[in-house]
């Protein structure tokens, strides 16, 4: 009997498919993974510390830099937390605009997920198609706030500016094209045998385990746990919209992919409803120039494309927060990596990493 031993493979921080600067220490037996330990912190900027020396309004641009492919969600989470603290009413129009923006951003984010999954599996063409259509959404944001990635659009008390008149027709055109776009993806990727066999029954995590390791968002729902904060908390005005929460069965890579693809459809439904109901009126509440929230602490969570995004703010009654903490879904979802990767091959680690979809800007905060 020949003697075998395991070896460690240092994957990242400079590796094509670690989605940024994640370092994975893989202990391998041949090509099989025995252990996968993530090391992060390469992108740590100390945003929580910086928040302590910024005013409440000044911190909004920093939230853009957390989950930088879904910045609208970050803006929304932070602003709603502060609004909860100072208890202000938001104008109806602003609420609807917020919903439209965050849901558009969810589509953009999931398109990016699909693209990166495709390229991690070697389907380069799938990536380009995803990026092509994400571009349309980014152009819509560009129209609204002049930025394509870091929006700083949702503000405490409303939104930064009203939408330009060409925004609604452009969005409706995108929504009209969206079923065709999705069908193209399904033809190119979902219907592909190789993709199916690469993803199906790999990286399985059942609902109980998923809850145990703290998975949230599409990853948790792919394991069959019905937990969508848009439904359970109905923050903002989400209770006014009719949408389903797509659930998976096995919690494998395939389910995580399909759940996100279906979520895009649901998001487009929400946007269509929000556009139909969009009222006229002011887009910003009367908010004092200098914000001095009462002393106290508040926790608020929203459903971001990557999971439960929570903000915990402690106010001491001054213009600057005493402590700001961000509960980052990507960071906590990474805990599942070791659990999921055990016994898989190197190629599957890449697939798992793509379907867990951590974003290093958010992981490292």
């Amino acid at each position: 009997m020949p003697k075998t031993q395991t070896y460690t493979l240092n994957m990242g921080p400079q590796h094509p498919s670690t989605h940024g600067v994640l370092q994975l220490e893989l202990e391998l037996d041949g090509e099989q993974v025995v252990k996968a330990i993530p090391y992060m912190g390469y992108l740590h900027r100390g945003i929580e510390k910086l928040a302590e020396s910024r005013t409440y309004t000044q911190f909004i641009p920093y939230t853009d830099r957390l989950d930088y492919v879904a910045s609208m969600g970050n803006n929304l989470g932070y602003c709603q937390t502060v609004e909860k603290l100072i208890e202000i009413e938001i104008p109806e129009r602003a609420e609807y605009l917020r919903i439209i923006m965050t849901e558009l951003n969810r589509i953009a984010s999931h398109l990016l997920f699909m693209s990166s999954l495709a390229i991690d599996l070697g389907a380069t063409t799938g990536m380009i198609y995803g990026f092509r259509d994400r571009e349309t959404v980014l152009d819509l944001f560009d129209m609204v706030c002049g930025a394509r990635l870091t929006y700083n659009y949702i503000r405490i008390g409303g939104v930064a500016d009203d939408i330009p008149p060409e925004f609604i027709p452009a969005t409706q055109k995108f929504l009209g094209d969206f079923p065709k776009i999705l069908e193209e993806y399904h033809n190119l990727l979902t219907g592909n045998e190789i993709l199916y066999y690469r993803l199906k029954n790999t990286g399985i995590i059942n609902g109980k385990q998923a809850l145990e390791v703290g998975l949230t968002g599409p990853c948790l729902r792919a394991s069959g746990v019905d937990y969508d904060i848009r439904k359970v908390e109905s923050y903002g005005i989400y209770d006014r919209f009719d949408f389903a929460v797509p659930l998976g069965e096995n919690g494998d890579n395939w389910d995580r992919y399909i759940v996100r693809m279906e979520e895009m459809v649901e998001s487009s439904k929400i946007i269509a409803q929000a556009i139909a109901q969009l009222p006229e009126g002011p887009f910003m509440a009367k908010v004092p120039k200098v914000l001095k929230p009462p002393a106290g602490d508040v926790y608020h969570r929203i459903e971001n494309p990557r999971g439960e995004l929570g903000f915990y703010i402690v106010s001491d009654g001054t213009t600057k927060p005493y402590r700001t903490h961000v509960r980052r879904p990507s960071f906590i979802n990474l805990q599942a990596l070791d659990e999921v990767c055990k016994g898989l091959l190197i190629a599957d680690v890449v697939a798992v990493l793509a379907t867990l979809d951590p974003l290093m800007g958010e992981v490292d905060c």
Partner: protein
Amino acid sequence: MSSQILSSEAISKLQAQFPNSISMIGEGCQQALLIEDSKFLTIMGVLKNDAAYQFTMLSNLTAVDYLDHFEVVYHLYSLNLKHTVTIKARCPADKPAIWSVMSIWASANFQEREVYDLLGLEFVGHADLRRILLPEDFEGHPLRKEYKLSAQDERRRVELCLKPRHTP
């Protein structure tokens, strides 16, 4: 159905079960249960496993430096009963240590490591308490109030962070 804050009956039932260990602070959405150190893990275990509470999800875990003491904040959520609760626990500034809840909620792992890393709180009973975001040889805990941001220090720290962090 939108989720609710843990009802006051349930809280008083819990308080009756553990007299003198649980006190209520704050009100409205800021309402929280402050738990004494001695029965901390027992109460947390009850909150997770008792049919009346079923807090299966540890949504958020963080800590705040109040100069004279540290306050660890837990935000729990029950998937079945759809209610939330905020738990707080305190430890003195000169003895920054608290029980780890990793044995109850495994998902506390990274969050406790993060608090350990950035605030320097010892989590007793944590299986793998190492720095998570900062380099191993980083001095100080940035989220403590005594840690001031200054330009020169920042430059030195940036240089430190540029070094490779971990080589197996």
